[in-house]
């Protein structure tokens, strides 16, 4: 464990150096947040039907989504991709570490460090000026925090699968194009999941993506009662385990393919 912890921490610190990317990302996500809120305000004004979420909850939900956007598994680890292409990954086998968890550690750092750089200013700005509310109550806040840890674990497991798939796809461009669309749509980052048609709700709940933001943000606002927490954790851990096992299976197969260069 000590080695993996050290890897997460080292990678985390290295990623904190990307300040200009964080500033640019913060600006974009603030702008997008405002647009999404305007659309929902228009929607609430024009509709007389009762809605699955209160308007102020939707606003908070949107800001949380913007603040934690980069936790979503929307891209593979680019540096890992380069290592795979150059054959450098084989040298990772010289470490007394399990190759999968070595990469999973990298994924955890990749999903948390940039998110922290963006989330803190987003909370301050949106909290002060754009109606980002505090958690519904203390317990809801705790439930949110605990489920966010789960979100990072799940997202890192999916990110690892995306990264490892570059052992077969070479460039990873296809994944980088496809993953954000699927993930953003089904995690509620475009429209909060409760606004999807009723017929789809069960499917959306079962898919892994609902644990990538939607349930967390609804716990925060109180839209999802804290009593749902065991089910939420069951869902997160189940899918995390699935993606970890998938990733490990892929690594075991992929290493044989990659480690062939050199005379």
């Amino acid at each position, binding site marked *: 464990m000590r080695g993996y912890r*050290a890897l997460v921490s080292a990678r985390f610190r290295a990623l904190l150096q990307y300040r200009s990317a964080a500033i640019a990302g913060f600006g974009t996500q603030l702008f997008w947040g405002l647009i999404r809120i305007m659309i929902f305000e228009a929607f609430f004004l024009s509709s007389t039907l009762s809605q699955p979420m209160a308007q102020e909850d939707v606003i908070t939900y949107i800001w949380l989504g913007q603040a934690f956007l980069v936790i979503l598994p929307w891209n593979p680890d680019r540096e890992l991709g380069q290592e795979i292409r150059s054959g450098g990954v084989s040298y990772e*086998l010289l470490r007394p570490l399990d190759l999968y968890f070595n990469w999973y550690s990298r994924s955890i750092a990749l999903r948390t460090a940039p998110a922290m750089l963006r989330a803190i200013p987003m909370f301050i700005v949106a909290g002060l000026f754009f109606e980002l509310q505090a958690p519904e109550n203390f317990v809801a806040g705790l439930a949110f925090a605990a489920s966010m840890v789960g979100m990072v674990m799940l997202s890192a497991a999916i990110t690892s699968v995306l990264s490892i798939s570059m052992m077969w796809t070479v460039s990873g461009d296809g994944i980088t194009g496809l993953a954000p669309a699927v993930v953003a749509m089904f995690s509620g980052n475009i429209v909060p999941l409760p606004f999807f048609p009723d017929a789809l709700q069960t499917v959306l709940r079962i898919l892994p993506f609902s644990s990538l933001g939607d349930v967390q943000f609804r716990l925060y606002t109180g839209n999802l009662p804290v009593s749902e927490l065991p089910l939420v954790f069951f869902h997160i851990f189940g899918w995390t385990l699935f993606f970890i096992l998938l990733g490990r299976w892929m690594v075991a197969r992929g290493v044989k393919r990659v480690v062939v260069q050199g005379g």
Partner: protein
Amino acid sequence: MTAPKVIVENLTKTYRVPERRPGLLGALVGVAKRNYRAIRAVDDISFTINEGELVGYIGPNGAGKSTTIKLISGILTPDSGTCEIDGLTPWSNRTAHVRRIGVVFGQRTQLWWDLPVIESFDLLRDIYAVDPDAYLKTRDELIDRLNIGSLVNTPVRLLSLGQRMRCDLVAALLHNPSILFLDEPTVGLDSVSKLAFRDFIREINAERNLTVILTTHDMDDIEALCKRVMVIGNGHILSDGSLSDLRKRISRDRHITVKISNPEFVTAGLESAVTVLQNGGQRVKLGFDPEVISASEVISKISSENEVRDLLVEDQPIEEIIAQMYEENAL
């Protein structure tokens, strides 16, 4: 007599390389059906290495050097054959095995590109689970000996190649390995760095009884460091023994370089016993076999007919011997 440190028996590794057909049509066909060509990079290799030995492992590009190193360091799994190092099989006991080895690759660093050197060292301490006190002692001693004290707070990407190589050496030794693999470690180093590197390897080999396996294309590395040399070509071991044995086997020739004042070199009845390798007018290089004709006889005959200003007798350079060996085996 203790058991050898490294026991390799009948190791074989074949790569399957996809072959692309030429042209657009070929590329399209290749999408549907790939042809593979089997390349036997390492073919039935056996050897043993004793604890504390410093072995040179040489061969032309593509001979199977790196593949052997990758096999015995645990990165690759062979098609067949066995390898035991301290009782462990590298590829099946990988994590236990790599804990006990240190590796330096001249072509790449094992340090983290964007971290200061010292943080890379700390990270390695945690990865190899080295006891913190022992780590501090080893680290400070190595930093001192390789004189990198002023570099340790610099990010690795800002180091020069020579500086990086010294830091990489420290990194490879922090966990006190019992075997050190050096893969072309002196590529691109300046002469001062090369000399310092060789001194350090020689010292550490003697002090710690550390087993060292060195692959290189630099024959000066081999001459300076290795009592034993293994030569590999086309996946086979062509020769295994001391450098002087290797010399004797390939060619017993000595070279003699003469500088003269007279305008034309006179061979003085040596034509049958001596071959003229280079004739630059007043600077002539000759080769002879000391079993056929003694050096003193060659020298006396030359000086009787020429005005000799300077004269140098030397072994045939190891570079040439190796090149000759590669050629003879059609590599």
